[in-house]
């Protein structure tokens, strides 16, 4: 399993699509960080500065983060979506499978897809967090809304993990980034394993599953959770106090992973029969 994972991880990691996605995410983070730097350069006193955690890319106050969030599903699946189709068309899958075994191949692929997407959506943001800690004074607690600290504390309890933010804001940001990384990994794994179903002949079709899934989720939201949103953009944004159904969304992500496991088992059994 370890060898299969390593082999597939290395193969996906050096692909042009993976590098392009990583650079694109890095660009969004760099733009956000530069904007924060320019904003803080104008301010003389620490007391007037915004809380650096509230200006991170995934924060609801970040314009760059807003644009990135709209591309999130596409970027999350982009490096790994075509992985199976490419290997199938080029025949390289037979080589890897013969060396590592059927089960090891599929679970290695699942692990590699998850880890690649997880790393793309965590490393640049953890780096931004680290740079923010170094460059900006962490004692500044200004809210970008302009309201006083006490008002924002009172109103700010509506968002997820808000208690953690008020006890340790760096830990809050780190946990949030890791959650987003896990969701990206979940999206990538689900998308990849749906493409193992018959009917996916062209690479272009491999971007279908995630969009169909999100479409059905938005449509089904009015029936499953009429008062609380399941929109990923709302759920995965820091300090977003909109009405969002986090437990159901977590269950959906777990369900996606469960479907991926079932599809992997199906492929393993198919391979064994042959």
């Amino acid at each position, binding site marked *: 399993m370890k060898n299969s994972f390593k082999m597939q991880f290395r193969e996906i990691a050096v692909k042009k699509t993976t590098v392009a996605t990583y650079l694109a995410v890095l660009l969004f983070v760099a733009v956000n960080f530069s904007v924060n730097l320019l904003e803080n350069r104008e301010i003389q006193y620490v007391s007037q500065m915004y809380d650096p955690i509230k200006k991170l890319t995934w924060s609801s106050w970040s314009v760059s983060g807003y644009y990135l969030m*709209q*591309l999130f599903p596409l970027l999350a699946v982009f490096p790994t979506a075509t992985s199976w189709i490419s290997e199938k*068309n080029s025949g390289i899958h037979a080589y890897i499978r013969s060396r590592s075994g059927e089960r090891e191949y599929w679970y290695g692929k699942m692990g590699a897809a998850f880890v690649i997407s997880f790393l793309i959506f965590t490393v640049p943001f953890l780096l931004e967090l680290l740079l923010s800690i170094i460059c900006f004074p962490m004692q500044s607690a200004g809210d970008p809304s302009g309201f006083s600290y006490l008002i924002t504390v009172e109103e700010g309890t509506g968002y997820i993990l808000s208690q953690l933010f008020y006890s340790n804001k760096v830990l809050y940001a780190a946990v949030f980034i890791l959650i987003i990384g896990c969701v990206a990994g979940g999206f990538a794994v689900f998308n990849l394993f749906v493409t193992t179903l018959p009917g996916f002949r062209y690479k272009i079709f491999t971007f279908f599953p995630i969009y169909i899934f999100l479409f059905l989720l938005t449509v089904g939201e009015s029936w499953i959770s009429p008062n609380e949103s399941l929109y990923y953009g709302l759920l995965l944004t820091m300090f977003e106090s909109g009405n969002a159904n986090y437990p159901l969304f977590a269950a959906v992500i777990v369900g996606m992973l469960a479907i991926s496991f079932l599809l992997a088992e199906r492929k393993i059994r198919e391979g064994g029969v042959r």
Partner: protein
Amino acid sequence: MRKYRKVLLLGCLCGILCVFSDMVNMEEVSLSQIILRTTFSQTWYHAGFIMSIMKMFIPLLLFQILCGSMIYRYFCCASVYYFTRNASRIKWFLLECAKLYLTCLSFLIIMILTGAAALLLVGKVTIDSSVVWIGGYYLLIYSLYLFGFTLGINVLSLAWNSTAGIAVPAIIQIMGIAFYTMMSQFADPVTGYLAADSAWMVYINPFAQLAFGIHTRNGKPVFSIFGPQEFPFELNMSVAYVGIIAIFAVAAGCAAVNRHEFITNDKEIE
């Protein structure tokens, strides 16, 4: 025929999931209301509308993915056999473009008709006089938009590969939506409208061409919930915009199919 069946099936599904599910609670609805609802007229350039915009936009994106390999697949599966027997590739390409355009039109019509038929089962659907011009502009603008971008995917897939082929148009469109919903930052904080000198933001945005809620016809707003804007945004301007996109895509496609080396062009195995 199988590929057209898939498109029609997608149209039916989107009609039920988008149009029907969105308007199922309305007792009486007119056909023009159904069309206006599908043309983002209930939304405004504000971040709060991003979810409803994406919900209505995903069917268009799914169509583009489904038909994004309609022409390109000839270069993947049958290029050597097929193109050695085709005297004029341009003629063949234009014929394929015509088929693609008709597919776009069929998809849009099926989507609206399925939604209207499903609504008819649970309530009342009336036909009003304004449906003629609203429907006309809807079909013209949306079909040309879909055609332009879907053809763009095919052409880019041919020129580069299908991954880049889908990524570039999808990113342009999604960024267009994100920019559209962020335009409220430049709007007047009291009225919520963009000033006339910011009109270029609307004019250049490909997504804004689809949003009938901010359009005008003969100087009057198409849909009056959000009131008149401070600058005209005529439907005819959007027809011209999407028409230019479509013409550009056809021209680029003609150049691409003519120059493309058909023996080494199956990029699907890379």
